[in-house]
């Protein structure tokens, strides 16, 4: 049984179970639907990537799981983490879960680190505040954490400030801070998007290695399928706030079961052998205030027929371990 099949069929073993998660922002009488009902479960030690373009709701999903959606955002549905419902918890109640339960790495490492404290102070603060450790013990652990994420002469760099590090090194420090309390689930929100490609590879290797060695689960948010493949074994594709396809990442890569996933593959320069084969997806993602009667992707879909605009497809199993939100998923699978 594959890891993916396991999480689909035995939700009782899941570390985190997300059910009908919805995030809506109400401003000036308009309702912006960032996430329109997501179901997803991740087992202990599993690595899942959420793939989607800007505005697909992938980052908002990650933040909603952490409880980091601020007013006027409204989260509904259910997020059960280690048997505990997180939606509706107060900030104080969420404090226990954040850190040892859920941890997060953000996209912009310069913005994510406090500019007025040295990185050593910031790493040590976690251990002193959350675990009640002494300064000396926290200092030793901070050095060890910095070494684990591949920072040379860690002891010397403890007193350096965030702006004195390169982007890649800063992101390594953010990762060190995220794993300091040995989280059960690490949420990484586009952690390599702001980095050079060469630096990006190093960070991805590091995340994959830490995940493998510590046994923590990983929820990796990205817009880049090639990146997702390097860290995750299971892929969730989001479009317009919904999951349109999910399954084991290599299976999706080989035989996509949704036209959107297929279009993403064709628009990725890494997946085609010649530039002339590169097909950008025409049109723009739909307006987030829209309410759909049919399929949200219909307007940009090369296969769309009148049924697609009239009848909204449900997310359904189309092959063992594979789910797709397309009326013609089976045809797509067979076409390969």
């Amino acid at each position, binding site marked *: 049984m594959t890891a993916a099949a396991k999480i689909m069929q035995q939700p009782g073993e899941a570390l985190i179970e997300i059910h009908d998660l919805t995030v809506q922002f109400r401003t000036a009488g308009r309702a912006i639907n960032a996430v329109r009902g997501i179901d997803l479960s991740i087992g202990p030690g599993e690595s899942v990537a959420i793939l989607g373009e800007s505005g697909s709701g992938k980052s908002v999903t990650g933040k909603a799981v*952490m409880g*980091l959606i*601020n007013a006027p955002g409204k989260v509904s549905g259910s997020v059960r983490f280690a048997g505990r419902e997180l939606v509706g918890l107060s*900030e*104080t109640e*969420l*404090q*226990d*879960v*954040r*850190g*040892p339960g*859920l*941890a*997060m790495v*953000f996209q*912009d490492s310069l*913005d*994510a*680190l*406090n*500019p*007025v*404290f*040295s990185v050593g102070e910031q790493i040590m603060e*976690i251990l002193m*505040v*959350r675990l009640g450790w002494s300064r000396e013990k926290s200092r030793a652990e901070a050095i060890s954490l910095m070494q684990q994420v591949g920072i040379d002469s860690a002891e010397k760099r403890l007193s350096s*400030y965030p*702006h*004195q590090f390169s982007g890649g090194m800063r992101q390594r420090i*953010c990762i060190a*801070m995220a794993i300091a*309390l040995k989280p059960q689930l690490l949420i990484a929100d586009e952690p390599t998007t702001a980095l050079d490609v060469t630096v990006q590879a190093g960070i991805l290797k590091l995340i994959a290695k830490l995940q493998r060695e510590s046994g923590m689960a990983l929820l990796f948010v990205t817009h880049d399928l090639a990146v997702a493949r390097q860290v995750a074994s299971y892929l969730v594709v989001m479009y317009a706030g919904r999951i349109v396809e999910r399954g084991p990442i290599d299976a999706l890569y080989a035989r996509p079961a949704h036209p959107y996933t297929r279009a993403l593959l064709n628009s990725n320069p890494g997946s085609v052998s010649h530039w002339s084969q590169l097909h950008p997806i025409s049109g723009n993602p739909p307006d987030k205030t829209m309410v759909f009667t049919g399929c949200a992707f219909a307007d940009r879909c090369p296969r769309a027929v009148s049924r697609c605009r009239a009848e909204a497809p449900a997310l359904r199993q189309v092959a063992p371990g594979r789910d797709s939100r397309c009326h013609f998923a089976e045809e797509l699978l067979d076409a390969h």
Partner: protein
Amino acid sequence: MLKFLSLRLTTSLIALAGVMVIVFFLARLTGSPATLYLPADASVEMMEAFNRQFGYDQPIPQQFAQFVGNVFRLDFGQSLYQQRPAAVAVLSAMPQTILLAAVAMALTLLAAIPLGTVAALHPHSVQDRLITLFSLLTASIPDFWFALVGVLVLSVNLGLLPTSGQASLLSWILPVATLMLHPVGVLTQVVRGAMLETLNAGYVQNARARGYSWKRLAFRHALRNAALPIITVAGDRAGGMVNGAVIVSAVFAWPGIGQVLVDAVYNRDFAVIQAGVFVVGIAVILLNFLVDLIYAAADPRIRIS
């Protein structure tokens, strides 16, 4: 950092020199001290004798040259009115002034930082609106009116507080409140604005994701980053408290530098005016220097560059 500080010090000293030149000539435009200190029917000989005694018979440029020479020896001459060295007359008033300003500034910060933070934590809430109303009120009430009404109501009518002097701790209440009035309102709004920005910054969200309490997020992670605008405005207002305590001096007869300067102008006591402006100028330069040092302590990016 050292280069920056020495540059700041140099420009401040040039500004102080400019102010001293202006004060020297403006003071002499108020008229001759001889007409004030001698009886109305004094003879021309008496006038000339008076001017000769204090050096006012010399041409103005020559008086100025002598004044400049003396300043470099820190000699500000004799006070005509007080019959003692002008520097002594001024410096003896400084402790009262600095103490009053320090107490008022400390209380201003103690009030403005929590108020502004609470407002920023709950933007557009009832607390926020009440705090904003309070800060707008205090920032817009004329301080001389507040001082006079305070004395009238609390001291004269109700007899709760002394009207003037500094005999007991109670006599500090109205002078301190008057000095705090505008700064507390302005600073509360500055804290609110700066904290609104830093509370939403990525590093505070990241710290929140590590499970810290709101107190730690607000008063450690957000406030340290909001410190620069707060220090700037607090420093500016502290300068105002040192040299602008004239109202407090006038209404409450507080024996500070404001009182000394006002008396000196009325008495055409040129030496005291010059010494007073010089000492206040030095105090403001030192204050700015202190603000720069606090900047550097608060933000490593300034310290290192």
